[in-house]
C-alpha cells in the first residue's frame, strides 16, 4: 500500500464548517442496519478478527497504573494471541498497533517495548477533561515526545465547541500539532460531551484542517463513548476532507467496544464508508483493553468450534 504523505492540514475555512449539517435520525437509521447487511464468517472472520487486533491500541489509563502493570500490557501487545492459536492461524508476527498510557508511564512502556517496533501512544493536554492551560498542555505534549512517545492522543476543549469558538479551537489544535513535531497526532473529540452530532462533525473537520493525523471518538471516560452514530458522523467528515484535499486522515474508536462482534461491525463501517485503504493500523485504530480477550475467545471458537473459558486467555 502506498504510504500517503502526512496530512499537512489547511487554513481554517469557515464556509465549509458553516455548511455542515447532520441529521441525527437519519444517521441512527443507517447505523441500526450496520451489523445486518454484511456478514463475515468462517476464515474471513478469523482474518477480520486478526486485522482488528493489529489495529488495537492496547490501553491502560488508571490512577493506579504502575510500571509493572504497563509491562504486563506491553507483553500482551507483543503477543496478543496465545502462542498455540497464533501458530494455527499462521500469523506469528501479529502484534497490537500501539500501547496507550498516561504521560507518567511513557518511559515504562518505551522500555518494555524496546526493539519490537510497537509505538507508545501517550495521552496528553490534561487528559481526560482538558481543563487546564494551553501552556501546560503544550509542555505535556513535548515531555511525552521527549520520553519516547511516537503518538500523542490529545483532547479538544469542549467548552470551545459549546461556545462555537471555532477559530480558537483551530488555533489550539494547530499548536498541538506543532508541539508533536514528528509524533502522530490523534485528536479526541470527546463526542459524548458535545451538544449535537453537527457540533461533532464541525469539530472533526476543524481538527483535520488543523493537521490531525487521526480523529478519535472519545476518551473512553465520557458517559457515552464510541457509538456507531458518533463514528459514522466522524467517518463521513474524514471522507469529505479526503475529497476536498486528497489527504487521508485516520479514525480511532475508543471506549465501549467490549466484544468481538462489535469490533467486526466497526471494521465493516470503515470498509463501507471509507474503503479498504483505511482498514489497517495506519488509518484505523480501536482503543480498548478487555476487547482483546473477547477477540481471542472468538478466534478460539473459529478455530475449534468450542466456546473458550474466560480464564484461559492470558490477561492483558
Amino acid at each position, binding site marked *: 500500500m502506498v504510504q500517503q504523505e502526512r496530512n499537512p492540514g489547511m487554513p481554517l475555512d469557515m464556509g465549509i464548517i458553516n455548511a455542515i449539517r447532520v441529521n441525527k435520525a437519519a444517521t441512527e437509521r443507517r447505523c441500526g442496519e450496520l451489523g445486518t447487511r454484511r456478514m463475515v464468517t468462517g476464515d474471513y472472520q478469523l482474518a477480520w478478527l486478526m486485522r482488528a487486533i493489529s489495529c488495537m491500541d492496547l490501553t491502560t489509563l488508571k490512577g493506579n497504573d504502575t510500571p509493572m502493570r504497563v509491562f504486563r500490557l506491553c*507483553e500482551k501487545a507483543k503477543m496478543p494471541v496465545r502462542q498455540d492459536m497464533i501458530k494455527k492461524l499462521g500469523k506469528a508476527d501479529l502484534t497490537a498497533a500501539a500501547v496507550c498510557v498516561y504521560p507518567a508511564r511513557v518511559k515504562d512502556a518505551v522500555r518494555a517495548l524496546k526493539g519490537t517496533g510497537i509505538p507508545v501512544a501517550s495521552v496528553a493536554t490534561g487528559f481526560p477533561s482538558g481543563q487546564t492551560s494551553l501552556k501546560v498542555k503544550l509542555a505535556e505534549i513535548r515531555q511525552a515526545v521527549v520520553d519516547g512517545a511516537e503518538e500523542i492522543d490529545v483532547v479538544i476543549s469542549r467548552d470551545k465547541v459549546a461556545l462555537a469558538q471555532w477559530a480558537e479551537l483551530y488555533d489550539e489544535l494547530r499548536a498541538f500539532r506543532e508541539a508533536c513535531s514528528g509524533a502522530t497526532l490523534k485528536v479526541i473529540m470527546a463526542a459524548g460531551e458535545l451538544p449535537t452530532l453537527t457540533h461533532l462533525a464541525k469539530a472533526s473537520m476543524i481538527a483535520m484542517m488543523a493537521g490531525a493525523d487521526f480523529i478519535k471518538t472519545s476518551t473512553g471516560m465520557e458517559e457515552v463513548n464510541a457509538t456507531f452514530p458518533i463514528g459514522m458522523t466522524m467517518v463521513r467528515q474524514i471522507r469529505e476532507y479526503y475529497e476536498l484535499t486528497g489527504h487521508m486522515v485516520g479514525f480511532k474508536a475508543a471506549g465501549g467496544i467490549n466484544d468481538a462482534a462489535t469490533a467486526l461491525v466497526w471494521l465493516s463501517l470503515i470498509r463501507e464508508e471509507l474503503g479498504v485503504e483505511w482498514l489497517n493500523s495506519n488509518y484505523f485504530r480501536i482503543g480498548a483493553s478487555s476487547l482483546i480477550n473477547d477477540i481471542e475467545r472468538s478466534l478460539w471458537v473459529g478455530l475449534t468450534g*468450542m466456546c473458550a*473459558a474466560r480464564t*484461559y486467555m492470558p490477561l492483558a
Partner: protein
Amino acid sequence: MVCGGRAMAERLTSHPDVAKVDFCGSTLVGQSIRKATAGTGKGITLQMSGKSPNIIFEDADLDGAIEGIMDAIFRNQGQICSAGSRLLVQESIAEKFFAKIRRRMSTIRISTSLDKSIDMSAVLAGTARIQRLVDTARAEGADVWQPDIEIPETGDFWVPTLITNVGPTSTVVQNEIFGPVVAAMTFRDAKDAVELANNQRYGLGSGVWSENISLALDVAHQIRAGMVWVNCYNMFDATGPFGGRKETGYGRQGGQEGLMNYVKPKWMPFDKHDWTERLSDFAAALEKWSTRQFGIIDENDVPFGNPALVVDKSPKLYISGKQVAASSNYVYQCRTPTGEVIGQIAESTSGDVAKAIDAAHKAAPGWAKTAPHMRGQLLFDMAENLSYRVEEFAKRIHIMTGRTMESCTAEVEKAIERLFTYASWADKWGGRVQEVPVYGLTVTVNDPIGVIGIVCPEEYPLLGFVSSFAPAVARGNAVVVVPSEAHPLSATDMFQIFDTTSVPAGVINVVTGGQAQASRVIAAHEDLTMIWHFGDAESAFFVEYLAHDNCKRTWCAHGVQRDWMDNEQGEGLEFLHESVEYKTIWMPAGI
C-alpha cells in the same frame, strides 16, 4: 500392585471389572482415560496438571515465605502437580524479595538421593522438556537466572531456575514445566493478585503469604483452586482432601470428601455399559445422537381443550430473568398421552444455550457472595409462591402425563417440601474442620462450583425439575437447566414463580428443546466446569466423552431412574456433594 506404562493404564482402566479409576498424572493421559471410560458408569477421579500461584504480600514474613518457595517448587525438584510454579510478588517488596530468593537458591545442595545432605535430587523423566521451555522463555525475552552451584556430572539434574520479566502471555507462565523452575511476576494489590492467580487453565494449589488474617482469608476465598496454603505450602495429610478444579480435574483424595468418590448410594444399582463400538467412529455416532428431526405441525393435530377457547401455548426460554424467544423458529408439540397438543415448545439452538451459559456466568459471582441465609430465604419464598398454585400445577402434570390428580398433587406438594429442604441446607453445609497433624486451623470450605449445566430427568416433570436446580442454587451456583423434553410445561410454568420470587437475573436459566442437542452444547462448552445429566445411558456416554476436552466434571445417571418422591433417592448428601468444589485451606498458627 502392578507396573506398566500407558498401555497398562488403558487396559486396567477400561477393564469391565474395574468399577473406579483414580488417576494422577498428565492432563493428556487423564483426558484419554476419560474418553475410554465415558458412559461406562465407572467412578473416575482425575488429578492432573497445575500451574499453581504462590502469592507473597508485602506484609508477609519474607524469610518464611522464602522457605515456602523452597517447599513449593524446589524440594522434590518441583515435580509435584501442586507445585507453586508461578510466583506472584507484591511490587513494593519485589526487588528485596528477589534478592533474598537468589541468595537462598545459591545455598541449595543438589546430589544423588543417597547423599544425606541434600535439598534437591535428580529430576524424573529427563531434562529435555525443561530445557526446551527455558529456552523458549529466553527467546520470548524473559530473564533466566540460575545460581552458580554444583550438580553431579552424570544423571538427570537441573539447577533451580528463576525466570523474571514475564507476563501472563509468556509460555513459561501458562504451561506446566514440571521441574525446579519458577516463573515470577509482580502485582500491585490483592485484586491484581487474585486476577493473576485465577488466569490459568488449572486450579490445583495456591500459596498465600501475609501476616494479615483479613487479607489472607479474603484472598483464600477468591482463589479458584482446590488447595490454599496460607503461610505454608504443599502440606498434605490423609485427613484432609487434596485435589483441584478446572483442567486439573475433579474429585478429592483424602478426608471424608475424598471418601465420597469411592461410595455410591445403597439403593443405586451399578449398571455397566460398553460403548466401544461408538468409539470406533465417534464423530458419526455423535452426529446421529444429536441430530434432531424437527416435527411437522400437522393440521390434523387435535389441540387439547375446548377448541373455541384454545390459545396456542408457546412458552419461551428463560434467560437472565427474562422470557426470551428461541433464536430458531422451530417448535415441537407437547402432547397428552392420547395425542392432543397442549403446547408448542421452543427448540433451543446452540446459540441460545451459549447465551444462557453467559447469563449464568454474569450472575454467578454475585449469587455466590449472597449471604447463605438470604439464599435460603429465597427458596422458602419460592416454596410459598408455589404453594398458592398447587392445584394449577397438579392439573398441568395430570394433563401432560395422565397420572391421577392425587399422584400429581402429591408431586407438587413434594416439590414444595423439597424447596424447604434445600432452603434449609443453604446455610448449614459450609464445610468441615480437618484434624490434620499441623497445629492451627485447616478447613475444607464447600465452595460453589460457579455455573452448573443441568439436564433434567424425564420422570416427574415438576419434582424432577425442582429437585435438580434447588440444591445447586441453594449452594450458591447459577444454573442452566434443560427441562424434561416430553413434559416441559411444568418447568416453563415455573418462570412466573421465579419472577414473583425475584430470583436474581441469570441465577436460574431454562432452555427447552431437544435434550441431546442441549446436552451436547453444554458438555462441549469450555467455560463450564460441571454438568448434571439425569438422562439415559447413551447420552451419558456422549456427555462424558465430550467433557474430556476441558476436563469438565460430570454427574450422570447413566439411565438409572430415581424415585424422586422418596427422600432417600430424591435429595440429600449426593446432591449437595455434587453442588460444591471442596477448597481446603491450611492455616498453621502459633505465637
